[in-house]
């Protein structure tokens, strides 16, 4: 049922890794769609194939079998209209914050001058005004990750892929960045695929949570989060929030998996 409004349409996706000791089945029978402007979180334990899935969506890895379409066009390799944010900020230390944000503009020759003010605007949006001419190593981990998010958005991609972007940060920074990401998303309404192994983070941010279990990686359930935005951190203690979290956790605890 590929609706035309779907940005991402995945059907029957399978991924095997060929290794020296035979093939590893990383993903099998993955089906899902992501609608225009939708924020979808994928939650699952370590090693269940989340990064593999994201790399296939980004065109960095070929699928072994199945369909992966972006706006009805098969993803066969890297595309210019996808933004990616990795677990680590992956900034270039020889570039200033502004130049890091403009990296996609440089690579895709979109015109530095045209995009400079957009970059400054986005940096202001993530609260980094005044840091444009600093270098990444002069910034805290949380600030670096905000630069990475800005870089993911600068070329106005059809979709933003985020692979545990806050996984390496401490709990407090992480909470504040969750709030920040929500604010940014409310502002620009990107289509986002957000990977995490924190159930609370997934529920807090997403419109819909896809639950993944390992060996092989599969999506076992989709949970819609019908909580209106903006959501505050107080929500974390609310019963409706706890209900959804418990429902998701049940998938993992029944299999003896900690997530």
């Amino acid at each position: 049922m590929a609706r035309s409004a779907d940005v991402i349409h995945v059907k029957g996706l399978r991924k095997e890794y060929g290794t020296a000791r035979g093939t590893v089945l990383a993903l099998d029978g993955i089906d899902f769609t992501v609608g225009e402007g939708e924020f979808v979180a994928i939650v699952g334990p370590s090693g269940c194939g989340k990064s593999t899935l994201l790399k296939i969506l980004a065109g960095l890895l070929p699928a072994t079998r199945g369909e992966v379409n972006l706006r009805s066009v098969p993803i066969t390799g890297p595309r210019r209209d996808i933004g990616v944010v990795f677990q680590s900020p992956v900034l270039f230390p020889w570039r200033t914050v502004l130049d890091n944000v403009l990296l996609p503009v440089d690579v895709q020759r979109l015109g530095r001058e045209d995009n400079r003010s957009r970059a400054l605007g986005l940096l202001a949006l993530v609260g980094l005004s005044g840091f444009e001419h600093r270098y990444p190593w002069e910034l805290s981990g949380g600030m670096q990750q905000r630069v990475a998010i800005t870089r993911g958005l600068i070329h106005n991609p059809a979709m933003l892929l985020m692979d545990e972007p806050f996984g390496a940060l401490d709990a407090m920074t992480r909470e504040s960045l969750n709030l920040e990401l929500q604010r940014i998303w409310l502002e620009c309404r990107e289509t986002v695929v957000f990977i995490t192994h924190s159930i609370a983070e997934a529920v807090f941010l997403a419109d819909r949570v896809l639950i993944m279990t390992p060996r092989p990686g599969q999506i076992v359930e989709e949970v819609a989060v019908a909580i209106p935005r903006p959501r505050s951190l107080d929500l974390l203690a609310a019963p409706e929030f706890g209900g959804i979290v418990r429902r998701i956790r049940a998938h993992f605890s029944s299999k003896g998996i900690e997530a």
Partner: protein
Amino acid sequence: MNGVRNASLRVLLLIASLAVWEGAVRALRVPAFILPPPSQVGAALYRGSVSGIYLQHLWITLAETLLGFLLGSVVAFVVGTAIAASPRTEYFLYPYIVMFQSMPKVALAPLVVVWFGLGLTSKVVSAALISFFPLLVNTIAGLRSADEDRVDLMRSLAASELQIFRMLRLPSALPFIMAGLEVAMVFSLVGAIVAEFVGAEAGLGMLIQSRNFSMDVAGEFAILFILAVLGLLLNAALVSVRRRVLFWDPSQKAALNSASLRGGP
């Protein structure tokens, strides 16, 4: 202040060791053609400097060293890039490189002088040969050192291989390349001097030999001192370039230490 105290201690130590040297040579009546006292070395240094003979030969050795450094570095960078970029090139060049690398390159100097004559060319070639390896090895290692996540990021933006090279691999390789250049500079000076020993019409290495034949050991010491200063200045020039180019690199020292492990002259 501790720093001031340490600095004056350093000067004091230098003066003391020179005094011990001077005193020991005089007291033990060591002949000047074995070990001259520092006062004689100083006098030789003064005489040669005033007459302009050191400067005249210094320019020649400096030119040989710099040209050899330039030639060796450019070739090393190009070959290193070709090897890092394509496994095929590596496959075909690797046996020669391994063989060449394990050979003491100074042993080639006599051959180089036979082939290229007594003039400047043979010294430049010798310097280039010896300074080639440190940069080759470091260029290859450096270009391969680019962080996989950063390569993935570039790929995800649909960057071309050339863009990945220019925007990512080359800057990532710079700490290695700069460390390689520093070693190459020192080696280049060695290569020039060795070739001058084998056969030359001019240069500080030739001058050392002619002083040696005439048993002017104080003169030899004076030239050795000049060579040490020259080496220091060349290195200092590269260090200041490195500081400017690699302002962003937190691990400069580590790269520097690992650089000098392979490819000795």
